[in-house]
């Protein structure tokens, strides 16, 4: 399934900056960065549970927020991209 993850991490303090880096790193481990704090993750439910656990251990719920948008298995028709920074298709042909 495709899950879109966005976050807002308060970076007024050094601890906040650290949290931001950690959140970004974990998201990157599971998905593709499509915009600054927006990640598209093609994962199965187990991996999603694991990612959630990791993220929710990092953030400070008083100051930061996380949003998960579950786009399901039929996600291809639900995403459209316009402009710079085009992403790649995780299920398409991968050639470097």
């Amino acid at each position, binding site marked *: 399934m495709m899950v879109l993850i966005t976050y807002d991490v308060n970076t007024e303090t050094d601890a906040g900056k650290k949290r931001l880096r950690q959140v970004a790193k974990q998201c990157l481990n599971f998905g593709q960065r499509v915009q600054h704090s927006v990640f598209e993750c093609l994962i199965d439910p187990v991996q999603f549970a694991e990612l959630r656990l990791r993220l929710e251990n990092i953030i400070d719920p008083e100051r930061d927020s996380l949003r998960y948008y579950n786009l399901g298995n039929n996600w291809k028709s639900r995403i459209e991209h316009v402009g710079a920074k085009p992403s790649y298709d995780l299920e398409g*042909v991968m050639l470097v």
Partner: protein
Amino acid sequence: MRKLLNTLYVTTPHAYLSRDGENLVATVDDQERFRVPIHNLEGIVCFNYAGTSPSLMSLCCERGVSLCYLSESGRFLARVSGRVSGNVLLRRKQYRLADADAETAGLAKAFVSGKVLNCRSVLMRFARDHDEKEGSQEVAEAAERLLVYFRALDRSLSADAIRGIEGDAARAYYEVFRHLITEQKESFAFRGRSRRPPLDPMNALLSFLYTLLMMDCASALETVGLDPQVGFLHRDRPGRLSLALDLMEELRPYLVDRLALTLVNNKQVSPNGFVKKESGGVLMDADTRKLVLTEWQKRKQEEITHPFLEEKISIGLIPYVQSLLLARHLRGDLDGYPPFLVR
């Protein structure tokens, strides 16, 4: 059924692969070119010479992602595999059966009958679709002959006799294979199989695709816990993936031959895309190779109903399903090994 994940093909010669967290990162001239989480991958096939970092290798082994190296021309070089895993008992059983004459003959028979029947359906399909074209008579006759060979298999008891029939059937098949090329006949003329090196464009195309299929078969076998080196039809030889070659036999006509013919007959590949080397061998150029890889990947994603399991799977999973069935048979859960037969 397991989901078929993606395979990454690295064809840029100086791309270097490394690891960042759980990501694979491909860099070209110190510029990051591509990044993907490892859990989205099933395998990585490298045609590059810059290599991969040991850290990425260990990540691949840990996650069961197959990592293979091919030479620029598509010849198999090496495969990175982690510590021996899977079921020892299953592997032991495999070795024991490989030493038993009756079992070896039985399995060899299954692989060859799969091959003969699938070759026959490739020919029959042509004869049906092009019954007025020249050569269709010959093709139909060869299809008949394959049926005779298939019946002869039933009577032969020794593995060597089966190997003999396999050779005869292959000859009969490749003799009429040239008729199946209906477009670009001159440039893709086919006069029998040649390999190491392939001497004409058609053989170059076939050899390249066979290598890709072999790699898929080897990793599928390893996934289910079998030893890809200990075969039944193919005898053991150091470094040879005999069981992968066994498994490949029945899949070649459907997965490779038909794709190769489509590419030529639809004029997707052109003779200009092939280069002749001083040694007489023929190789594909970079663009043709990319096109073939793309088409191969697309083909693997198409879905079919597996004739034995009666379940919908993607074509790329066929080697995996067949390995599973083979493991079940070796373990004793299935009376015989059902080869993959095209309807």
